């Protein structure tokens, strides 16, 4: 009886075993990496804005406090986007004829707010509150990164749920003194573990079980 398959089939059969393992591994890698990549998370993606507002200039060079514009951060869930009036506090005097600030002046004249594009977007099913974090010693830069160096704003964290839980499972690693909360240059000291424990006790931060309970963030 004639052979059905050429003798090279033996090699192909064995090779396909390795190829299958390799393909499965590659597929696994793609599945693992895609949801963590900036493609899905928008991490490190610099956002174009209607006005090229520079946090680097305002925070880094001028030293304006975060709370001067984001007034709600200590008292409400939302940190707050400043109204055009806040801009005009200074820009009615400084750079008052600069062409690139015309949209600000136009907004001030017409009373129509500037439409910024949102950089940090959490899903609707997440309940997030800025005030509780800020008042319990979580600094701005812990989540938002070195804003004082960002000419245009970008999202410096993944905002994945696992990223939230990293802190909620071990809040001590980021806790600071109250005075350092808005300090953009804060670095965790060598004895952060010890300080974190003390601060957690001082701020009366709840147990990990409470911090990681579903309904803490999904209400």
């Amino acid at each position, binding site marked *: *009886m004639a052979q*059905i*398959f050429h003798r090279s089939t*033996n090699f192909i*059969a064995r090779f396909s075993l390795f190829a299958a393992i390799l393909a499965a591994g590659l597929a696994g890698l793609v599945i*693992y990496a895609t*949801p*963590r990549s900036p493609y899905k998370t928008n991490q490190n993606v610099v956002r174009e804005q209607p006005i090229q507002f520079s946090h680097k200039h305002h925070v880094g060079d001028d030293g304006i406090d975060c709370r001067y514009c984001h007034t709600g951060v200590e008292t409400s869930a939302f940190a707050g986007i400043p109204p055009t009036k806040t801009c005009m506090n200074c820009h009615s005097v400084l750079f008052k004829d600069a062409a690139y600030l015309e949209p600000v002046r136009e907004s001030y004249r017409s009373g129509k707010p500037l439409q910024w594009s949102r950089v940090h977007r959490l899903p609707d099913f997440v309940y997030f509150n800025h005030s509780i974090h800020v008042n319990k010693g979580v600094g701005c830069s812990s989540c938002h990164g070195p804003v004082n160096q960002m000419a245009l704003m970008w999202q410096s964290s*993944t905002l*994945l*749920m*696992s*990223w*939230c*839980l*990293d802190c909620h499972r071990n809040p001590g690693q980021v806790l600071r003194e109250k005075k350092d909360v808005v300090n953009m240059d804060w670095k965790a000291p060598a004895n952060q573990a010890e300080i974190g424990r003390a601060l957690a006790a001082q701020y009366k931060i709840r147990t990990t079980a409470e911090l990681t309970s579903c309904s803490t963030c999904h209400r």
Partner: protein
Amino acid sequence: MSATNDTSSLRRVAPVVEPGHTFGTVTEKISSIVLSRPAGAGWFFGISIAFGLVMMLGMCVAYLIARGTGIWGLNIPVAWGFAIVNFVWWIGIGHAGTLISAILLLLNQKWRTSINRFAEAMTLFAVACAGLFPLIHTGRPWYAAYFMMPYPNTMGIWPQFRSPLIWDVFAVSTYFTVSLLFWFVGLLPDLATLRDRATSRPQQMIYGLLAMGWRGSARHWHRYQMAYLLLAGLATPLVVSVHTVVSFDFAVAVVPGWHTTIFPPYFVAGAIYSGFAMVVTLAIPLRKFYGLEDFITMRHLENMAKVMLATGLIVAYGYCMEFFMAFYSGNKYDSFLAMNRMHGPYAAFYWALILCNIVIPQLLWLHRARTNVALLFVMSLVINVGMWLERFVIVVMSLHRDFMPSAWGNYRPTIWDVGTFAGTIGLFVMLIFLFVRTLPAISIAEMRELVAHTSEEQK
């Protein structure tokens, strides 16, 4: 065989394979169904109906995904309806395949040989139908893996390992994998037979690829038998474990009617009961239409009838114990449930269940009933209906009247519930039809072995 010879003066026991067969006739008879016999109008008629039902299944699932589970009859308090009922029913049916292929193999029961192949195929198809329901029951199938599979996800959390629902994922997927392997390993020598007997190039290629280079050398056979036995050993605990875990889905909850320790054994017995009923449902038309009465003899049908009788009695014992414990425990919710089953809004389902699962199968005590093929076929259908009703009674009747009367409600399946269920029956039938025409429905290699043994014994 001496034991059967002794009783032959009382009653002739049918042989496991009719005498007069040789290796050649066995091979010819079984492989011709696949290779040379034309499909016939009956086959096309059957598969077109089944295919129509599959199309309906596709429509039901598509509409479910578009609109969500609101199209089903589910609501609080009956949040588990047809999807779970059908899941448990299908997965139970699958159990006969593994029992026949693994446990009866290890127990050296020769009568398993001619029914194990299609019983295993039936297992795979039934588990496939069963698996569809957990996948779609949220209306968002893409979440099934997302919520249930333990993998390093971006949420930084794992599924709840203390929940029986996650054990279910492992139990069912292990079961499917082992059953598939067992079936495929068993098929290897037969695939090689088909490859060698095939006349057209595509058939040679396809069966040749599937046969994975089987040449039938002594070494091949040695390894084959070792692998087959090992897989049988692996599959044996699965016969018991899968439906035990499925029963935990209920037994671990505190709902009256679910929270009972008798559930695991009684679920396993029920699974084997319904599984054998389905094997009989398939075996009788198969042997008739393809003239396989020589291989699937009255001995097989009678033995399966006996298994159905035995497991049916265990199931009946389970019902009695549930009823007894409801009153013996003094728990008012349990005793209310027992009364509600008999007199509540779904009492008709309960009494139909008792009729189908306990009363009618008592006919199987009679030798005349066990050897009456038409009656046996009807009986197997009745038991399948009864086992479906059992799951309906457990799921719906336990939920619709729980602790607080203010939380009571009724359940009524919609046309989409019924359509999805009928669709899976169509899928099952279609797969069986395709299987019968593309793979040997009876194991050729094992039948040859059986013919060799029986002809030796006759000498």
